[in-house]
């Protein structure tokens, strides 16, 4: 297992968000976590990379128990994991180009020419052209999300975490992003953990689907297994996916 959650509990004040969830992800797998808003999907992602700390239970990444890591110990773990946030989370004071180059400058000893090549390639991947010199606030929200994806992919992470990567995107870009997740998994053996509401995308590209409700995992399995799942929430998601598409 490259990622493993063992009975993880997380609370904010009196409110328990994760109620002892456990799951594992094999290397190269694409796993979707589905669920309604406020069920703890994003908290799960953030707990994985130490942006939030679990109250109890264990989090394992690439064979290491990271549950009680100090902030500085997380650095090599975070280098392995790229995260696309719910918000584009681009740095306002840097241009699109500098945003994508930011991680490369920090982690790799590359020449400007190599950085330029890598940035251009990543922006091509997400179909972004001719806005390299613009500031994030000068481009559309959809473009910002794609630039954010390019920034994450630029540093070649082993594990990619997506927090609602296609929310706010048009259908064509949504398909392009899903295709990109699939390509990265096939070509680079990148492991992807995707938090989403989109059952249709999950059925299309996921190897495994986890459905969460009120801080608990209520269903899990392959897309085929999900199609025959009897849990009411899964049925609702399936109905919505079939209605829309």
């Amino acid at each position, binding site marked *: 297992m490259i990622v493993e959650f063992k009975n993880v509990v997380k609370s904010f004040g009196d409110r328990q968000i994760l109620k002892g969830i456990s799951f594992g992800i094999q290397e190269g797998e694409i796993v979707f976590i589905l669920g309604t808003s406020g069920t703890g999907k994003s908290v799960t992602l*953030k707990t994985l*990379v130490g*942006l939030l700390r679990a109250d109890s239970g264990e989090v394992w990444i690439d064979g290491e128990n990271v549950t009680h890591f100090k902030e500085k110990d*997380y*650095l090599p773990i*975070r*280098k392995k*994991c*790229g*995260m696309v*946030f*719910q*918000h*584009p*989370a*681009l*740095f*306002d004071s840097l241009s699109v180009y500098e945003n994508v180059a*930011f*991680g490369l400058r*920090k*982690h790799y000893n590359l020449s400007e020419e190599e950085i330029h090549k890598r940035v251009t390639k990543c922006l091509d991947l997400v179909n972004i052209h001719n806005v390299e010199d613009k500031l994030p606030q000068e481009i559309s929200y959809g473009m910002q999300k794609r630039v*954010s994806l390019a920034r994450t992919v630029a*540093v070649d992470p082993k594990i990619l975490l997506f927090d609602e990567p296609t929310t706010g995107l048009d259908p064509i870009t949504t398909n392009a992003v899903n295709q990109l997740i699939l390509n990265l998994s096939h070509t680079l053996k990148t492991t992807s953990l995707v938090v989403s509401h989109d059952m249709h995308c999950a059925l299309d590209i996921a190897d495994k689907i986890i459905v969460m409700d009120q801080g608990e995992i209520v269903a899990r399995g392959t897309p085929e297994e999900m199609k025959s799942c009897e849990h009411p929430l899964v049925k609702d998601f399936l109905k919505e996916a079939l209605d829309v598409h």
Partner: protein
Amino acid sequence: MVTAMGTKVISIFDAIGEVSYLILKTMVALFTPPFRFKDFVKQLNFVAVESAPVVVFCVSFAAMVTIIEASFHMKMVIQNDAMVPGFSSLLIIRELGAVITALLVTSRVGAGLAAEVGTMQITEQIDALKMLGIEKIRYLVVPRFLACVIAGFTLTIIANLVCLYCAMLVSQFKLGYTFGNFLVGMRTFVQFQDLVFSSIKGACFGAVIPIVSCYYGFKCKAGAEGVGLATTNSVVTSSVSILILDFLLSWIFSFFY
């Protein structure tokens, strides 16, 4: 009610602990590489250079009001305002220049800083920094801290000079004391250490602003209301802290006279 009071007390101690931790981490990052020189210069320009016009404009009026009021009250009480140039310059150098400058910088820079860091917090930019292996305190707080300390120091000196000049103008054209009379009066009351202590106060007040603003920025809750609240809390807390620090520093400096 007891529970509510207990919760409040605990939250106050929590906040003190968090601010102390922020100060400690800032101090450590301040003296250990990597240094973010480019960010520091950018912040220094924003805090010191861009604040200078508003500071100069406001303190000059404050100085003019101070000397006019001092003259009015002295004439009323002892029927003579001959000591006004000396007293006014002492008041300007020991209090007015440093405190008014700090409060102006708080409202201009502190509010902006809290809003900027707060927005970064709620739009996950700070999480993105962490994911890219950047320490938020080194990246965001240290350049602003250093810029505010240096700006506090220099703006206080500038404010003192402008205040004295404006007070001299009022003294010359309204009260009938020449520049020479004013300087003689000032020389009688003001000592060199007053200037030094005033500049130290300015630097200390400057240090308060980014620490308080970044603290509230990091604690910012989601939404426009969250950013607004972070900004308001930051300005109020910075202003109150500056006034309390002013009292403490004045008390400490009194042992040197």
